């Protein structure tokens, strides 16, 4: 759900946005303002992800208002004056709506915001994905994206990492596999777990990955090749 507010000095213009947002299921229009200073006050307490802002308001232009917000917020500008379009895009607006605009045009703008929101969200998700491993009597934080592959050594496992020393910990391969996102890692051998994304090529039941050759175990072969047959 994308939380949003709308700002316009003309009440009918706000009604249009209220009406259209009511038909979009991923937008939660929290409040509308015909006084920009009230909107700014509200924003300080209750940040939102999306702003609908009229450009031509007497107290402050929508562009200056958006510039004054320190929070990361997406903005869609509205105006009856096409000559302000360029300026709107200079501040990285998601879109710019020329009044009066159709619902279809509005939908296109909020879809753009939705895509951008999802993209930002994904990026954030993957960058904040960690696992914690107990090694050397400490809890060590490992960024999942840094894992090259995991090697099993009897009662221990060795986690090979990009540009870092490998981490050795007392753990079973099965327990390790459970800590990792199932869609991104696969066990290819009694002694190897690999991230799918790092596979360079597969030939003759050997996987090339990060300068290493990793064998595919007989009992893991079927599951591994099934991934590629779709």
């Amino acid at each position, binding site marked *: 759900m994308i939380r949003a507010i709308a700002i316009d*000095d*003309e*009440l*009918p*213009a706000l*009604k*249009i946005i209220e*009406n259209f947002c009511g038909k979009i299921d991923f937008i939660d229009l929290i409040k509308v303002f*015909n*006084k*920009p*200073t*009230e909107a700014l006050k509200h924003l300080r307490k209750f940040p939102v992800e999306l702003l609908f802002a009229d*450009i*031509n*308001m*007497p*107290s*402050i*232009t929508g562009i*200056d208002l958006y510039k004054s917000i320190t929070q990361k917020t997406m903005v869609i500008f509205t105006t*009856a*004056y096409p000559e302000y379009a360029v300026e709107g895009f200079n501040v990285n607006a998601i879109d710019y709506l020329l*009044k*009066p605009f159709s619902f279809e045009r509005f939908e296109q703008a909020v879809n753009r915001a939705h895509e951008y929101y999802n993209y930002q969200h994904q990026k954030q998700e993957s960058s904040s994905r960690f696992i914690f491993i107990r090694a050397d009597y400490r809890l060590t934080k490992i960024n999942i994206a840094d894992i090259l592959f995991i090697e099993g050594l009897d009662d221990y496992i060795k986690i090979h990492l990009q540009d870092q020393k490998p981490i050795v910990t007392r753990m079973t391969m099965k327990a390790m596999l459970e800590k990792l996102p199932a869609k991104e890692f696969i066990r290819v051998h009694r002694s190897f777990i690999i991230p799918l994304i790092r596979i360079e090529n597969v030939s003759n039941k050997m996987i090339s990955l990060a300068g290493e050759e990793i064998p595919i175990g007989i009992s893991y072969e079927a599951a591994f090749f099934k991934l590629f047959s779709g």
Partner: protein
Amino acid sequence: MDSPGHREPPFKPHGSSFFFENSQHIFLFLAVFFFSLLLKINNLWKQSEKEKLNAELSFLRAQINPHFLFNALNSIYSLSLDKSDDAPASVLKLSAMMRYVLNDAVHDFVSLENEILYVKNYVALQQVRFGNSMQLGFTVNCNTENKKIAPLILIPFVENAFKYGVNAEENSKIDITITCYEKDLVLYVFNNKVTIQHKTVEQSGLGIENTKRRLRLLYPLSHRISIENNPENFSVTLQLTLS
């Protein structure tokens, strides 16, 4: 622009064959000179055409301000999305305004009734846009029968009040009265001065200054205008003796 003739050293001795030797240069010089003259004339002509066009355009623009038009349309659009009962009436008001500008305002004098109706429609549509954001007083007390007036002479003063007097965050008090006496008409417009972002001001080609000029031409001895311009507010009183 250097003509080729200028490349000659300035103090060449003047022999008998001077003209013959230089005739080619002189010819070239003259050719370049005439060509540039031609270009200049052409540019001047183009410029005057452009100015004429601009004057016409600004006159047309003055009649219905496009920014007002699109914002009014947006308000009506909003009313119709809400299935409001006010939508049809607003469409009629806007179309009456446009008809007045297109059909009536081309004449030198129009009926006072129509000129006042134009102001009424304008004010009503502004009220739809801004609602309670402003405290608007609007009174017309006129017997318009058989009276004539120059078209679009009242609206610039009214427009001005909305242009500089509406900000939802401030005390946006606007007072407009139109009163008719036997032969005279008095228009009084008052507005508080509110904060306005300069670049967002709705441009109308015909401001108060232009209208004053028109009044001097059309009502040379039969109008009086007084303006009070304070830091807090602005008011104008126009007294016209109608024909």
